[in-house]
């Protein structure tokens, strides 16, 4: 348990520190966030053609309401937490790679739901938008990360992996 948490915290701190560098912001975070806005907009336009994306901003042409996807809402930090948790857990590398690939997609899918839902909640009621944005969705995304990790941990074959000291100790 102790080893898992130490490795997890070290990895998370390292990934987060790298994320904050100008290089990572320019070549990873900004393109990621813009892609998230573009993907969310392309989904929205399936049923609402009056929506456009410009960089990280999603805007309604009909009423002018817009949301800007900022740090904390682009799913990058949630993804880093999941990556650190999967990489830190004792498991065969092929399981880690599979967990990372599927897990990142799962977290980002829910994040797209978050972005789209907030875009429409904000047009409906700004007070509800603030609540959903600042508290509820933050908790739900972390819950998503935890659940994805739990599902992945359950699928790590016990025979292949050294007995997870963390869990065995419980």
């Amino acid at each position: 348990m102790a080893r898992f948490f130490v490795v997890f915290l070290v990895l998370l701190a390292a990934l987060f520190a790298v994320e904050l560098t100008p290089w990572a912001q320019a070549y990873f975070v900004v393109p990621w966030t813009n892609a998230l806005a573009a993907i969310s907009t392309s989904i929205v336009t399936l049923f609402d053609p009056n929506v456009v994306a410009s960089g990280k901003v999603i805007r309604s042409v009909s009423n002018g309401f817009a949301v800007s996807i900022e740090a904390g809402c682009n799913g990058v930090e949630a993804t880093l937490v999941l990556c650190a948790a999967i990489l830190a857990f004792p498991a065969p590398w092929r399981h880690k790679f599979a967990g990372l690939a599927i897990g990142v997609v799962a977290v980002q899918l829910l994040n797209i739901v978050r972005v789209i839902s907030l875009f429409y909640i904000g047009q409906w009621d700004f007070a509800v938008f603030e609540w959903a944005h600042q508290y509820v969705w933050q908790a739900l995304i972390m819950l998503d990360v935890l659940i994805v990790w739990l599902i992945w941990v359950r699928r790590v074959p016990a025979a292949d992996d050294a007995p997870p000291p963390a869990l065995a100790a419980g």
Partner: protein
Amino acid sequence: MTSPVFRFVVLVLAWLPLAFAVWYVLAPVILFPAELIVRGFADVALRGLVDTIDSHGAVLSFVTSLRPGEARSAGIVTVDVNVLLYAFGLPLFVALVLAAREKPLWRPLLVGYAVMMPFIAWGVLADFLKNVAITAPPLVASQAGFGPRARDMIAFAYQLGSLILPAVVPAVVWVLTHRAFLTRMRATGAAAATRGQH
């Protein structure tokens, strides 16, 4: 048969609205320990910068000794920080504990509550410092007296305290306080995987 993970998720989602409601209504009471930590830190480490801290519900108003303009009589700078922004992990943690149903319930609830308070205080203090040292107008920020290195540290503390800690700490504490639950869940997962192979 329903997956234990699915049942667990359903229970968490069922508890979450109630946990959020209680958290929001009782926030000034529930978050009082974090407020005490903030006040204690300000008394010790920010003396001269923070004159008083007023609380209005879940909002802490830092009354500073900084002046908004060059004129000495032009008033003072106050910074409001919403403590709830750094405490949304509490209802998540409570929902996770209640959904896991590991007896006795009070133990992880108490441990989680105690562990989360300093991290909530961290977020609040870093938010305040970011406001006076980084995002304030240059005339105000220069009075705060933080050098470039200190401003970098404040920026990092703020990013960590707002983007990572509020969400990660409850999850980490929950995992640490539910090792037996996770072991059982993992064992059922391994058993299901073995059945699937045969």
